């Protein structure tokens, strides 16, 4: 030990909750470094939505008419915000799998034996998963341009649209994190992390106009926050909305409903997750 010459460390004293953001960012940095070290994972998480764009644009595109827009490429204009919404929703799956993996590693014991803010592991995970969507959205945007999609409104509106998408990504990441804490192993997390995402993204206006659904489904789809998100981004990008006249309340106020449901969902699922994390970790 005599070779160690460093002065005694000065731990900056402050109540631990005061470190929540700091510790969350430290863990987020760790998760993002992992992303860089396993580029294959990032690659495939980008390839998947790109394939969706191509499939929907060229396979389904001709078969789905968009109310109020008869242009030949109307469906592609309509589709892209839907793909954006679906893609950011799938950020939840990586939170589920990532946390399930973390919780079964020796590393979690070290985290728990450190004087760090308890929610930091969860905040770091959700932040990193949402941050990764920045790159995914960038690549998707380029793909959209290639298939003829256009941003028709101003830059500010576009930035606002992307901000809503990232807020939504962060929201579903918390739902995914909460599910991840209940997973007995990472393999189960792989499946469970995805199952709920398919109905959630398809029972919406992401790929088809609401009017084409049976009436009872229209109610579900209208109140599905992803519909409001997708509608809000369509409006902000200046793309066809596919809306008829008989609108539902959430779809009359898509921006407000998106932000409000994100705030409520984050509040609910972060509380549930932190509680669950503490319970699992201190039996």
């Amino acid at each position, binding site marked *: 030990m005599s070779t160690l010459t460093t002065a005694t*460390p000065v731990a900056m004293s402050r109540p631990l909750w005061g470190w929540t953001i700091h510790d969350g960012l*430290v863990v987020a940095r*760790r998760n993002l470094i992992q992303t860089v070290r396993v580029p294959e994972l990032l690659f495939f998480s980008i390839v998947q939505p790109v394939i969706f764009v191509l499939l929907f644009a060229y396979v389904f595109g001709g078969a789905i008419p968009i109310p109020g827009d008869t242009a030949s490429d109307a469906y592609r204009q309509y589709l892209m915000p839907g793909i954006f919404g679906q893609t950011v929703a799938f950020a939840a799956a990586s939170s589920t799998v990532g946390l399930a993996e973390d919780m079964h590693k020796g590393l979690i014991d070290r985290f728990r034996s450190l*004087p760090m803010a308890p929610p930091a592991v969860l905040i770091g995970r959700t932040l990193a998963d949402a941050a990764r969507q920045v790159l995914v959205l960038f690549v998707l945007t380029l793909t959209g341009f290639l298939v003829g999609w256009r941003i028709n409104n101003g830059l500010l509106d576009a930035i606002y649209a992307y901000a809503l998408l990232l807020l939504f990504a962060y929201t579903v990441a918390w739902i995914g994190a909460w599910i991840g804490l209940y997973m007995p192993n990472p393999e189960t997390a792989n499946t469970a992390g995805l199952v709920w995402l398919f109905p959630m993204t398809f029972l919406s206006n992401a790929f088809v106009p609401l009017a084409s659904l049976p009436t009872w489904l229209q109610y579900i789809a209208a109140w599905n926050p992803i519909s409001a998100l997708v509608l809000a981004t369509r409006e902000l990008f200046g793309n066809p909305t596919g809306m008829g006249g008989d609108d539902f309340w959430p779809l009359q106020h898509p921006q407000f409903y998106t932000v409000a449901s994100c705030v409520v969902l984050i509040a609910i699922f972060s509380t549930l997750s932190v509680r669950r994390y503490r319970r699992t970790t201190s039996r």
Partner: protein
Amino acid sequence: MTYDIAVQAEGLVKDFGEVKALDGIDLTVPRGQVVGLLGPNGAGKTTTVRILSTLLKPTAGRATVAGFDVVRQPDEVRRAIGLTGQYAAIDEYLTGRENLRMFGDLYHLAPKYVKERSAELLEWFDLTEAADRPARTYSGGMRRRLDLAASLIAQPSILFLDEPTTGLDPRSRLGLWGVIENLVKAGTTVLLTTQYLEEADQLAQDIVVIDHGRVIAQGSAEQLKDQIGGDRVEVTVADPQAIPRAVEALAAVSGSEAKVDDLRVSAPVSGGSTVLVEAIRALDARDVVVTDLQLRRPTLDDVFLTLTGHTAEDEAPPPATQGRRGRRRGGKDA
């Protein structure tokens, strides 16, 4: 931080449902000492360490670490301790240096300190060359060293080492022992769990033997060896027919009864190596041809066998009492 007793546990009980992992553990580790927690798999070693390092809450009993209550003041305890578990608790995608930086940041240490301390630890643990490679490329021994380095980033005054050398090759094990000895010289208090008697003997001043969640013996290695009687003279005869004569000879030398095990005959003695000469004379006088003759000091293995009825490396035998089914479920909680 002023305390003389680094770790104190009183009547620690831990139930996992029906399973009683700890059944009233008392433990005292004086400041600056190394105490070895010795026991077979499933004895409750890891559970004890997990409670003391705030990872688990005890069902009953209380414990203080560095003067702080592990249940009521976990944050204070966490600032004082370092923990190295059975499984390397490092991020394998991060490099060695990034790992140390992350843990230093999470201890809320000044960034400049973390940088210098990391470099120092990497050097000290012979990881400088590998410092900027992801930890998943490390060998088992390197991971363990990085793990230990991580638990030392904040210079903890109390270190918990849970089976630190399990799974290491003999050379790495010796290296780690050297590291631990150096830490202790510098004043660190260490609570070490192990199932290797040799390791407890080598490192710990005080050994606490636990089995089935209870302390069954405590003392220095020497004291524990004395508990089962001192030295024995042991002779191996060439011809089974000579056994009765060998028994007679050894009984004459030792003054108490000799024990027979196959071709080996042994008896407790005192008086050090001069008894060997007496034994040779007594055997020779009875025409016993011996193939081996030795004075055997009891090992901790003998101690363990005497205390528990099984050796340390064995799995604990199935508990006799009802309601303890599956107590070894999940080796991690053992």
